[in-house]
C-alpha cells in the first residue's frame, strides 16, 4: 500500500486491529443536509457524477421528479421528491438528498464477509474498497438504509464515499461544494450538530414546531445528518426510517452465531476423536463371521 492511511478504525471480516495510530483529533466529520433549504436543483447529483467520473445509463421517465429513479452503482446520491399535504391542507414539497448515511455502527461493514472490502476511517467515513469486494451482496442485506448497489457490469458494490479522497486532502465533498443554497454543509460532527441546532431554532420561529435533526442513535449516529421540518415523521421524506438500526436478524447472523457455530463444529469433530481414542472402533471379527456363517448354514 503506497499511501497508508493509518486511520482505519473498523475493517470488515477482520479480527485484529488495523493500523490506526492516526486519529481524527480535530474531530469526526459530518455532512449536514438541510432539507428546509433544498430547492431540488440536483447540482449535488451532477457534482457527484463529475468528481467521481460516473455516468449512469439514461433512464426512462417514471412520471416523477426523481431522476434517476433510484440509487445505482453509478448514481451514489439522489434527490427524492415527496409531495406532502400537511394538516392545514397546504402542499409541502419535501426533498431529501438520499445516499450513504455513513453510520457510526455500519450494518454493511458488519455483514461483509470479505476482509477489508469495507472500512471505516477515524473521521467516521465508511468506504468500500472495491478491489476486495467479492460481490456477495451481504452489504445490501446489512444496510438499514438500502444504500449499497451491486454493479451489473463488474459485480462489485458501490455507494457514496463521502468523497473520502477529497476529505483526506482537506476539501469538502463535491456535493457540498456544488450546492447553491448552502443546504449541504460539511465540517466536524460537533460543528454540524451546532449548526443544525441554530437552524432548528430558526425553523421553530417560523412555525415548524417539530423541526429537528436526524442523527439516529440506533446506528450510533450518522456522519450524514439531516435537518428536517418534520423530525417527528421522518418517513414523510421518501421513507426515511424513524429508528434505523442494524436488524436483529443481521446481528444474530453476524454476531454470536459465528464463534458459537465454529466452536460447536470443532467440538463435534473433537468428540468423534475422543470417542475413537477412548472407546475405540467397532470392528467385525472372526466370531461375527462365524456367527453369520452358522446362521447361513442353518437357513432352510
Amino acid at each position, binding site marked *: 500500500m503506497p499511501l497508508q492511511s493509518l486511520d482505519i478504525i473498523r475493517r470488515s*471480516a*477482520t*479480527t485484529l486491529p488495523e493500523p490506526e495510530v492516526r486519529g481524527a483529533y480535530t474531530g469526526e466529520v459530518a455532512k449536514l443536509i438541510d432539507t428546509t433549504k433544498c430547492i431540488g436543483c440536483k447540482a449535488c447529483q451532477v457534482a457527484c457524477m463529475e468528481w467521481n467520473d460516473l455516468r449512469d445509463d439514461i433512464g426512462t421517465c417514471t412520471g416523477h421528479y426523481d431522476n434517476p429513479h433510484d440509487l445505482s452503482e453509478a448514481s451514489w446520491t439522489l434527490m427524492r421528491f415527496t409531495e406532502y399535504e400537511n394538516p392545514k391542507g397546504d402542499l409541502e414539497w419535501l426533498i431529501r438528498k438520499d445516499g450513504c448515511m455513513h453510520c457510526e455502527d455500519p450494518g454493511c461493514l458488519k455483514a461483509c*464477509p*470479505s*476482509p477489508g472490502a469495507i472500512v471505516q476511517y477515524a473521521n467516521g467515513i465508511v468506504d468500500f474498497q472495491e478491489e*476486495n*469486494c*467479492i*460481490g*456477495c*451482496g*451481504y452489504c*445490501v*442485506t446489512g444496510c438499514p438504509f*438500502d444504500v449499497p448497489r*451491486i454493479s451489473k457490469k463488474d*459485480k462489485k458494490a458501490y455507494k457514496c464515499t463521502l468523497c473520502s479522497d477529497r476529505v483526506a486532502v482537506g476539501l469538502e465533498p463535491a456535493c457540498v461544494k456544488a450546492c447553491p443554497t448552502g443546504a449541504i454543509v460539511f465540517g466536524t460532527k460537533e460543528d454540524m450538530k451546532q449548526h443544525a441546532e441554530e437552524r432548528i431554532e430558526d425553523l421553530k420561529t417560523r412555525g415548524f414546531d417539530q423541526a429537528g435533526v436526524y442523527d439516529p442513535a440506533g446506528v450510533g449516529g450518522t456522519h450524514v445528518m439531516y435537518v428536517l421540518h418534520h423530525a417527528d415523521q421522518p418517513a414523510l421524506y421518501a421513507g426515511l426510517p424513524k429508528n434505523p438500526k442494524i*436488524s436483529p*436478524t*443481521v446481528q*444474530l*447472523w453476524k454476531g454470536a*452465531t*459465528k*464463534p458459537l*457455530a*465454529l466452536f*460447536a*463444529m470443532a467440538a*463435534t*469433530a473433537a468428540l*468423534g476423536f475422543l*470417542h*475413537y481414542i477412548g*472407546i*475405540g*472402533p*467397532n*470392528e*467385525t*471379527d*472372526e466370531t*461375527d*463371521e*462365524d*456367527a*453369520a*456363517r452358522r*446362521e*447361513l*448354514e442353518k*437357513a*432352510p
Partner: protein
Amino acid sequence: MSARDADDIVRYTAGTRINHWIVAISFVLLALSGLALFHPALFWLTNLFGGGPWTSILHPFIGCVMVAVFILLGMKMWQDNYLQHRDWLWLKKSKDVVMNREENLPDVGRYNAGQKLLFFTIVVCLIVLILSGIVIWRIYFSALFPIAVIRFASLLHAFFAFVLICAIIVHIYAAIWVKGSIRAMTRGRVSPGWAWKHHRAWFREVTKGLQHK
C-alpha cells in the same frame, strides 16, 4: 477379509456409490466455500476456489449440483429410511450404541435409527438451504425478495449449513468408527459378519433362501 471374498454381500451398487461420492464431493466444496464466507478466520479457504469473488460465484452453482444429485440418491434410499418401532428402541439404547455393545440392541434393518435420522436431517437441511440460498443469490434472485426475507434467509442458510456440517461430521466419524463401512461405499461390498453384526435384519433379508453350500 480380502477385498474380493466370495461370501461378500453387495450393499451399494456402482451407481449408488458414484452418486454418493458426487454428493459428498459437492458437500465438501460447499462446506469449505461456505465456511470461508462464514467466519473471517476461515476466509483463507477462498484461495482453494480462486479467490473471494470466484468463491461467491461458484458456491451457489455447486449447491444446485449437490441438491440435484442428492434428489437421485435420496429417492433411492427413501424407503429404507422410514422410522419403525424398533428404531425408537434402538435410540433409547444409544448408550450401548456408543459403547459398542451391539448385542444389547434390537436387530437393525438396512439402516439403523441413527442413519435414518441423519438421512432426514440432510433432507430437511438441503430443502432449507436451497430455498434460502436462492433468496440470497444476489446476482440472479435477491432483487425479487423484500429485505426482511433476505435477512431471514441469510440467517437460516447459515444455521442449517451449520446443522448439516455437524451432521456430516457425525456421518464421517461413524464410517471411521464402524470398520468395514467405508469399504461398503468404496467397493460396494460388506462381509457377512459385518452385515450380521450391524444390520442383522437386513442380513437375513438379503440372505433369505441362500443355502450356504
